[in-house]
């Protein structure tokens, strides 16, 4: 209890010291806030991209072509089996007639239309097989999962071939992956920069209070005692910095909101609101305090032992 009371005393004493140099404290806190704001933006960006990806109407479709001379009853049985597969969100059976209708509609603008109809007449019958169009569930839209699904469906009797357009899935995956890595590297660099800034500010504080540290050591102050206020300084810079970052985030979200709303409407969701939860805010504050404390420790370890009383 006494221990916590003493820590609290140092905390308030440090707060008082900060207030005594409001400008330099404010400057450091603002720099920390901005250094924390940028990773927060990146985090929102990545999360929004993820959410857009999962809301995308054009999520990958698989088309299963059944073997040619299958009866409608058999086709129905296969359709039911496919529908029961746990990774399938939605499936639809397309009869040869529907297929033909769709096909001619699709190629209506094409110059080949005439040729095609001529060929059909020449063949004398509908050449299209039964087919099943299906959409995988959201959690199965990764490239690997879809390839696996394709293998699984391919083993069903009566399915002749499967068409899957994976190109955009792969490309989209590659884009989000690139953004994620870029964001991660940038965040790590920003965290390092933030530690350097806090560390340097703490160093200046230590130098300014050199005489006080000397005297404290002369009257029996341990290293632990003389470094304590600086650790609190670091943690407080981190704390106020992250609060500042949250404030800036909130202010900037007001400016960004109109643009985001347009983006959101086109995909039917509200990624910006979901993208930064209350938990995320607490995580940011925790991260700020931890980084501030760590950088202070690092700075203190470098500089305090050098101060020897004379």
């Amino acid at each position, binding site marked *: 209890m006494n221990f916590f009371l003493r820590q609290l005393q140092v905390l308030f004493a440090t707060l008082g010291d900060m207030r005594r140099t409001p400008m330099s404290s404010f400057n450091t806190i603002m720099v920390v806030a901005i250094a924390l704001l940028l990773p927060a933006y990146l985090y929102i960006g990545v999360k929004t991209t993820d959410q857009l990806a999962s809301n995308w109407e054009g999520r990958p479709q698989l088309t299963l072509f059944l073997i040619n001379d299958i009866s409608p009853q058999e086709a129905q049985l296969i359709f039911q089996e496919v529908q029961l597969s746990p990774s399938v969100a939605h499936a639809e059976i397309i009869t040869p007639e529907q297929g033909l209708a769709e096909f001619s509609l699709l190629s209506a603008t094409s110059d080949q239309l005439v040729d095609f109809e001529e060929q059909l007449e020449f063949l004398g019958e509908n050449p299209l097989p039964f087919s099943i169009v299906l959409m995988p569930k959201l959690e199965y839209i990764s490239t690997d999962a879809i390839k696996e699904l394709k293998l699984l469906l391919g083993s069903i009797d009566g399915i002749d071939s499967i068409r899957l357009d994976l190109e955009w899935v792969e490309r989209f995956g590659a884009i989000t992956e690139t953004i994620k890595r870029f964001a991660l590297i940038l965040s790590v660099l920003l965290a390092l920069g933030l530690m350097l800034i806090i560390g340097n500010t703490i160093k200046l504080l230590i130098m300014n209070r050199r005489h006080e540290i000397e005297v*404290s050591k*002369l009257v*029996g102050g341990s290293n632990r005692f003389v470094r304590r206020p600086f650790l609190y300084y670091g943690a407080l810079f981190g704390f106020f910095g992250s609060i500042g970052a949250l404030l800036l985030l909130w202010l900037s979200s007001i400016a960004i909101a109109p643009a985001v709303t347009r983006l959101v409407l086109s995909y039917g969701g509200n990624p910006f609101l979901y993208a930064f939860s209350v938990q995320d805010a607490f995580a940011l504050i925790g991260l700020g305090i931890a980084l501030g404390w760590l950088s202070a420790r690092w700075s203190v370890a470098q500089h305090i032992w050098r101060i020897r009383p004379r």
Partner: protein
Amino acid sequence: MIKLSQVSKRYPNGYDALSNISFHVEEGEMLFITGHSGAGKSTLFKLISRIEKPSSGQIWVQGKNINRLRESQLPQLRREIGVVFQDHKLIMEKTVFDNVALPLIVIGMPRDEIRKRVRAALGKVGLEGRDQALPETLSGGEQQRVGIARAVINRPSILLADEPTGNLDDDLSDEIIDIFRDFNRVGVTVLIATHDLRQIDRLGCASLELSKGEISAYHAAPAFELTQEHREQSDFF
């Protein structure tokens, strides 16, 4: 108990401040250190409180060879020794109260206890009511007394006072030296570096004279009688 055996101190610039010093001070003794300016009095105190390390020789404080102390053990040593520094070493940004309280703050004493003790110590050095003043608003003699209050606040078993009366008039000097005398009467070992030979005559204490870093004379204390006045003063502690 303080014991020095063949202690020499050469500063990094090559200057020999002390050469081959040996003497010991029994627990509860009071000893004046005299000598001209530059004789090595302050250096001697810095060695005893491990602010400086001897270039050669051994120093024991309270039975411990302080040459062998690790960095982490220094705070403990310094809590046992109260030092009045020649240059006061006050923290100018902090109030008189905070300066005097520092030795108690570093050991985590409860606030109430600190307040009581600081008030008593400031009263003892004649600075009652000045606890919220900043040191720079005090005279040289007043700053010196703040340093004295800080040195005794922790009730150390050894007191080293480096020119504690340098800026004080005779009356105040007597008062301050009497404070040290009172501490000595309750068992504290006291070493006082001074130019003020009058005090030695007045109190009849032992004295050690340094000259150019060497011991040039030692005068043992004549038998001393406790006066009623001194007994009363010692009750304070």
